[in-house]
């Protein structure tokens, strides 16, 4: 099956190509089903190919495809190891469900087939990223998912906000990519290759001095861009302008986790730089609490989920920064399940409310759309970290690992714990505001449960969110064993073996989650006037959170506006004035000299004749006088 692995990328790519050129001849639902079939088949191929890993038999293998840039040793090659397999399964699995959901969600859109073209293209790009056998090919996927993100955020191109958000996402990502690219330069200059195997084998001997730290920090910049970490997270909330399935697939489940994946993949490099790892963890922790606090006060249902995603990505960074790679990947996986579920549920709600996203105008939807409500409740509980749902296990493992690491990580652990509390609070707030209480929507809205094609993926994801955490519990470390071949020779931070400590830590986690959830329920179960007063009592903090700390304005004031001023000065003063002025100045000087001697040219041919004759006389005289 491994020989057919290329099909995993080729199928969605082919689907995208087919829909791109012939999509307009395919009627509406069919094109969506085609796209879903493409990625679904990819899932099955990947699943079959991954069987040997489940059996714990196979070694990672590299599958060459063709030469790409031989001067850099960068070729198209796939690496099939447990980490890649897991990522592939998550991407294709969750991706398939979201594809199916989108068939319902995008119903009636005039560019229906185009949406699925881009969605399939995204799947192919993301799979390229995770299956890549070297950093160059990873970078290919890395940039292509950025492209798809751009295309899909800006899918409703007639909305100026969507177009601006798409551009912002791409540009901010590019800033991260710059760091990543410089990291790649250092990698290439150090190892003379991009291939994982070539780099990791020689990491110990080549990474001297601060090289590992440099690479680690530069990769962190790239990862922070893609995974929306401080200070580059600002694009993700805006990215919610895209259709909701896009938010679920790209901006929750898959693309944004690429940064985590890269750091996990580069574990053999981070092995040699505890400093960079610590920075990764610190950035993650800071982002986690920062974004969680913003999520508390958002009114837009998708914005809450967006900041929640940023926060959860911070958790993953916290894990991989603590070298708890398995925990990070584990959380990546469970997060993909429950956050996709939450986004799709939010999409279902938005769909039902005729594109209303303000939670203040929702409420009481439980009865109108029970399936969505229940599945979202499962997702919310999973996110909050209530056992035995998926989020509990992964989050708890991260916190436990950080605690076990000790030192500075105690501090990070406390931040994580507080974040867990905030998380439970805001997601409960979201669910209560949307589904409970009195209806706050206008009469004509007519909310309704979504069609089967949308609810079935919700149910499937809810099931995954429910049981997904069981793959790696302290009682049964299936995932850890599964991933072992990918992290051979890398130190992995584990939670402590001491069952008592473990139990206390778990208890604290549960306590934080329960406290947050309980507070959220109690605060928002009450009538609107009461919870409004509750929010007002936190002023001015609440307002700051609602404004997301004004970071966008800050960036605008400190970077965008001065940047534009600079560009204008360069273009209109310096370039037009100085550089081109010098050029035209030379022209003017020459013309001035011409003006000075032009009276000599009277225009009378006989004047010229006299000069001519005089000249001839001089020449002849000179010759007669003996020449030279």
């Amino acid at each position: 099956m491994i020989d057919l692995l290329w099909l995993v990328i080729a199928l969605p790519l082919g689907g995208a190509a087919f829909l791109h050129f012939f999509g307009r001849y395919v009627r509406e639902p069919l094109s969506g089903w085609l796209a879903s079939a493409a990625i679904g088949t990819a899932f099955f191929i990947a699943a079959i190919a991954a069987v040997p890993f489940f059996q714990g038999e196979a070694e990672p293998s590299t599958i060459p495809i063709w030469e790409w840039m031989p001067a850099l040793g960068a070729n198209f090659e796939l690496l099939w190891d447990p980490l890649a397999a897991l990522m592939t399964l998550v991407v294709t699995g969750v991706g398939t469900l979201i594809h199916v959901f989108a068939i319902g969600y995008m119903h009636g859109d005039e560019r229906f087939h185009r949406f699925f073209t881009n969605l399939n293209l995204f799947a192919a790009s993301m799979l390229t990223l995770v299956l890549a056998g070297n950093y160059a090919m990873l970078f290919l996927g890395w940039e292509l998912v950025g492209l798809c993100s751009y295309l899909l955020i800006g899918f409703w191109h007639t909305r100026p906000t969507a177009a601006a958000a798409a551009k912002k996402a791409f540009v901010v990502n590019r800033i991260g990519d710059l760091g990543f690219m410089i990291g790649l330069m250092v990698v290439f200059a150090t190892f003379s290759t991009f291939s994982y195997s070539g780099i990791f084998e020689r990491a110990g001997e080549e990474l001297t001095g601060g090289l590992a730290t440099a690479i680690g920090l530069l990769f962190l910049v790239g990862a922070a861009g893609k995974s929306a970490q401080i200070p580059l997270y600002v694009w993700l909330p805006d990215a919610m302008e895209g259709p909701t399935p896009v938010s679920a697939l790209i901006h929750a489940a898959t693309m944004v986790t690429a940064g985590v994946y890269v750091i996990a993949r580069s574990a053999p490099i981070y092995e040699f730089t505890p400093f960079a790892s610590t920075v990764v963890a610190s950035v993650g922790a800071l982002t986690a609490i920062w974004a969680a606090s913003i999520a508390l006060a958002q009114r837009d249902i998708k914005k809450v989920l967006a900041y929640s995603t940023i926060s959860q990505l911070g958790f993953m960074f916290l894990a991989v920064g603590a070298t708890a790679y398995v925990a990070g990947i584990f959380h990546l996986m469970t997060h993909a399940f429950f956050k996709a579920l939450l986004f799709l549920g939010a999409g279902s709600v938005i769909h039902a409310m005729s594109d209303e996203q303000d939670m203040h105008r929702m409420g009481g939807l439980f009865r109108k759309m029970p399936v969505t409500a229940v599945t979202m409740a499962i997702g919310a509980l999973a996110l909050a970290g209530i056992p035995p749902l998926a989020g509990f296990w992964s989050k708890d493992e991260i916190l436990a690992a950080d605690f076990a690491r000790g030192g500075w990580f105690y501090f990070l652990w406390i931040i994580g714990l507080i974040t867990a509390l905030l998380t439970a609070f805001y997601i409960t707030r979201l669910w209560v505001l949307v589904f409970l209480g009195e209806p706050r929507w206008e009469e004509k809205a007519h909310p309704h449960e979504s069609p089967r094609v949308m609810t079935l993926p919700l149910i499937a994801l809810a099931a995954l969110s429910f049981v997904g955490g069981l793959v790696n519990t302290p009682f049964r470390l299936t995932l850890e064993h599964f991933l072992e071949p990918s992290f051979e020779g890398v130190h992995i931070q584990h939670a402590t073996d001491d069952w008592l400590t473990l139990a206390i830590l778990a208890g604290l986690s549960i306590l934080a989650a329960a406290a947050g959830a309980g507070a959220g329920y109690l605060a928002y179960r009450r009538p609107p006037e009461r919870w409004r007063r509750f929010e007002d009592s936190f002023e001015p903090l609440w307002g700051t959170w609602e404004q997301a700390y004004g970071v966008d304005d800050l960036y605008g004031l400190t970077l965008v506006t001065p940047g534009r001023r600079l560009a204008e000065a360069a273009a209109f003063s310096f370039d037009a004035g100085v550089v081109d002025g010098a050029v035209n100045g030379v022209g003017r000087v020459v013309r001035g000299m011409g003006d000075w001697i032009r009276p000599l040219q009277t225009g009378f041919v006989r004047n010229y004749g006299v000069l001519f004759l005089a000249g001839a006389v001089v020449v002849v005289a000179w010759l007669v006088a003996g020449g030279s």
Partner: protein
Amino acid sequence: MVETILFVLAAAGALAGAVTVVLARNPIYSAVGLLGTLFSVAVLYVVQLAHLVAAVQVIVYAGAVMTLFLFVIMLIGVDKEEKREENLPRQRLWVGAVAGVIILFAAGVAVFGDFAWVPAATGPVDQEATNGTVQAIAEPLFTDWVLAFEATALLLTIAAAGAVVLAMFRRKRN
């Protein structure tokens, strides 16, 4: 002796013609003066045994070219006489100065200079070597100078074409 007499007569004719060209106010007279000069120079060619060139001078120059001149004079108008006074400032002053310099210089060179008109001239003239018969001219013309000859053919063609284009120019506009 014959040569001396012919030289004196022809030289006088040529100078007289030249002066007429310059001084005559009516271009017709100038043309007649030029004709005289051309004939006189042709005589000097014959004296120096340049038979073919003399013949060509008479046929082409005195014949064809002068006819062309006369045609153009007729076309433009015979009655267009030129005023004597100069209207370019200082033109005559400059011309006079340059001419004076030339004459003074020539006189100076002739009187004081150790000057040979034709520096490498050898003694007695070999009549046969410079006898410009048709055959004698034709031989170098079609051997050593054949490329130049072809080039002049091209030049004449272009000149004819150019003259036609220039003449057509006005008609197109009308």
